[in-house]
């Protein structure tokens, strides 16, 4: 759902540039207290994986395709603000090197896919996970909350995109909103599957590398420095 140039008017894309720019600055400030050297290569591979996975459009109903978003996965693996910065990176590379998403719409695209689909959806996921983990255990709670809210993240991002189109006067609400949310509730199923499978794989191999997982790390894979 990368918005090209021409879909948004100046007041909309200008405002969203401000919001996204401010959030990016805040995220850089926020992660500096908790970022350690070990996490840097993880930021790199998560961004690279999301970039590659976003190229893999899968067909959904009626001659439409959808692709993985990855914002929820990034936030769960790395922490919300680190995940947000990864999404900013991916969206900037796509905009500047691949003409995927317009330069005027970059702020809007970061807002939709990084803030609404990333940060906001992540904290909604945490709200579900926290009480759930007392009932069914940390691991099941994390996986089921992530499955649900990675679907939600795509739907909310598409809703935000639709509303921006309406505010810009590009297309009326009753025309675009149901269509955007409808098709993305299908694409969101793909998002939920890919995110959950990827999370299961990382939880199996290196649970200590999953930021949102608070359960016991596997003792044989955790190195001495990580146990503390």
């Amino acid at each position: 759902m990368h918005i090209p140039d021409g879909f948004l008017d100046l007041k909309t894309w200008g405002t969203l540039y401000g919001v996204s720019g401010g959030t990016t600055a805040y995220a850089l400030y926020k992660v500096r207290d908790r970022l350690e050297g070990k996490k840097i290569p993880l930021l790199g591979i998560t961004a690279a994986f999301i970039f590659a996975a976003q190229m893999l459009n899968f067909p959904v109903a009626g001659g439409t395709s959808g692709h993985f978003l990855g914002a929820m996965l990034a936030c769960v693996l790395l922490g919300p603000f680190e995940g947000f910065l990864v999404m900013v990176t991916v969206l900037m590379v796509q905009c500047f090197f691949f003409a995927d998403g317009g330069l005027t719409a970059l702020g809007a695209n970061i807002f939709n896919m990084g803030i609404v689909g990333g940060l906001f959806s992540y904290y909604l996921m945490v709200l579900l996970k926290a009480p759930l983990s007392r009932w069914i255990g940390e691991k099941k709670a994390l996986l089921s909350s992530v499955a649900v809210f990675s679907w939600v993240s795509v739907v909310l991002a598409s809703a935000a995109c639709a509303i921006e189109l309406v505010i810009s006067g590009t297309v009326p609400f009753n025309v675009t909103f149901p269509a955007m949310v409808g098709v993305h509730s299908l694409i969101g199923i793909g998002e939920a599957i890919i995110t959950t499978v990827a999370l299961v794989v990382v939880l199996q191999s290196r649970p200590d590398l999953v930021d949102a997982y608070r359960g016991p790390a596997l003792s044989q894979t955790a190195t001495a420095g990580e146990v503390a």
Partner: protein
Amino acid sequence: MAIDVKKNLRENKGLWIFVGVGIVVAVLLGVFVAPWASSSPDGLEKVAEDKGFIKKAEEEKPTWTHSPMKDYAFPGVKSEKASTGISGLVGVLITLAAATVIGLLALGLNRLHKKRMSAEGSPDAP
């Protein structure tokens, strides 16, 4: 801040294996799967086509015209599949580098901040 590469590799062997596997997976997806991805319009494009506002993007002159791999096509490569695959590889490497640089930038801010805090806290600070 000198980094002992050998010591780091030995102590974080598992991490580096994980990172290596991650890079390989991303490259394989970008090079060997992406060329066969669906070329149907995505959700937003499809809605824009159906509702008739796609022309707003088509009529608009792009504000950034220097994208070297527009629409994931590597310039000068005739085969469409190879073109997508190569741009997938290049894109994965650029993204990897860019996110690493942003991480290092944040880490640098972190170290600068800590240094300043400890300088302010120590009695011999000016």
